[in-house]
């Protein structure tokens, strides 16, 4: 419980770490209508593509130095030598990032969705997809950043990108499914299935990668 509170405190006190990505998300979602014709149909057409890319970018920004600070100040060494599972702590860390960044971004994304599509149903259906996809993005970017812990986040992002592309394809299909009223829950279960695998395996893999870095 202490580790959960400590990780929460760490992120909360670093407003740059959580507020920055949320503001970037708001900026993208507010600015994109200015660059296209002010016809609602045009906005709707581009909206979901912009939404998914914005979520992806924000999660990338949020996880940029997720392990670097702990590596530089010696906290990771302390975590490795204690019997409390490193993968558990990493899982907690990702969960806190999701709670402070992923959930607000999902709520704001749904509000924008309501504003653009004027459909409560669409906004309600998009919300769980946003929640799940932001958590998956966070996990994958954390994995990429752990691989290149001391080499900068750009390389980590490049490594992660191929893993994210199939998810973007699925997210595009979810919007089509909602519009056509088909298979929405099938896609949701698929995304939940992916998340349930990732939520267990990624922290475990990251813990091995971090141990290798420290060695």
């Amino acid at each position, binding site marked *: 419980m202490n580790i959960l509170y400590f990780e929460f*405190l760490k992120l909360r006190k670093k407003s740059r770490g959580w507020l920055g990505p949320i503001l970037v998300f708001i900026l993208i979602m507010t600015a994109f209508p200015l660059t296209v014709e002010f016809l609602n149909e045009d906005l709707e057409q581009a909206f979901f593509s912009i939404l998914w890319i914005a979520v992806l970018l924000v999660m990338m920004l949020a996880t940029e130095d997720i392990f670097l600070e702990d590596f530089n*100040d*010696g906290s990771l060494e302390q975590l490795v*030598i*204690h019997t409390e599972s490193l993968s558990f702590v990493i899982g907690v860390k990702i969960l806190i990032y999701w709670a402070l960044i992923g959930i607000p971004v999902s709520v704001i994304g749904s509000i924008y969705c309501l504003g653009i599509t004027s459909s409560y149903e669409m906004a309600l259906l998009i919300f769980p997809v946003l929640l799940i996809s932001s958590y998956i993005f966070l996990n994958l970017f954390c994995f990429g950043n752990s691989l290149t812990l001391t080499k900068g986040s750009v390389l980590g992002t490049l490594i992660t990108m191929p893993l994210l592309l199939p998810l973007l394809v699925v997210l595009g299909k979810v919007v089509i499914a909602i519009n056509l009223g088909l298979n929405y829950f099938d896609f949701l279960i698929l995304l939940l299935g992916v998340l349930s695998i990732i939520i267990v395996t990624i922290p475990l893999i990251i813990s091995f990668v971090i141990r290798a870095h420290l060695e």
Partner: protein
Amino acid sequence: MTMTYLIQAENLSYKINEKKLFQNISFEVNANSALHITGSNGSGKTTLLRIILGISKPTRGSIETNLTSDMCYLGHKNALKQYLTVEDNLILQSIQHNKPLDTLLKDIDLYDKLDVVVSNLSFGQQKKIALLKVFLNESELLVLDEPCVGLDGKAQTFLTSFLQEELGKNKSIIFSSHINLNIDAKSINLDN
């Protein structure tokens, strides 16, 4: 009666890029005992401590541990969050030590610093906070890498008396230091 060891190392060697850092180092650390690792800069003191902690692996040799609890480690990096207060940085420490936190803070001249953000403290004060985590720890083995760096005379004296006291409580200590800490300890020199 055979004494059970906490740490037993046999013929430890470590190479970095084909350069031998140290070789054939053997030692045993039992309960209530201390081990002082000495050596010149770059002789591998920190690396040896990291091998003991299980963070690094030796190139050759073996190390066995017989511990019932986690080790407590203070390295060159203090593991302090610069943007958090001293109190926040101590959240993960279980405050169950015989000595209350207030007394310990007084002993190291940090009584009024609990609410201060760590980045506003001097290097020496930050080192004291890192040591405070050691003081509050209940591990049976303390591993300290250059614990005296940045400490004033009073804090060094307190650290020495604390470690001597811990040795009497069935605890063991492994430390590297260029300064002689005046505690009863076996010594190994990595330059030899």
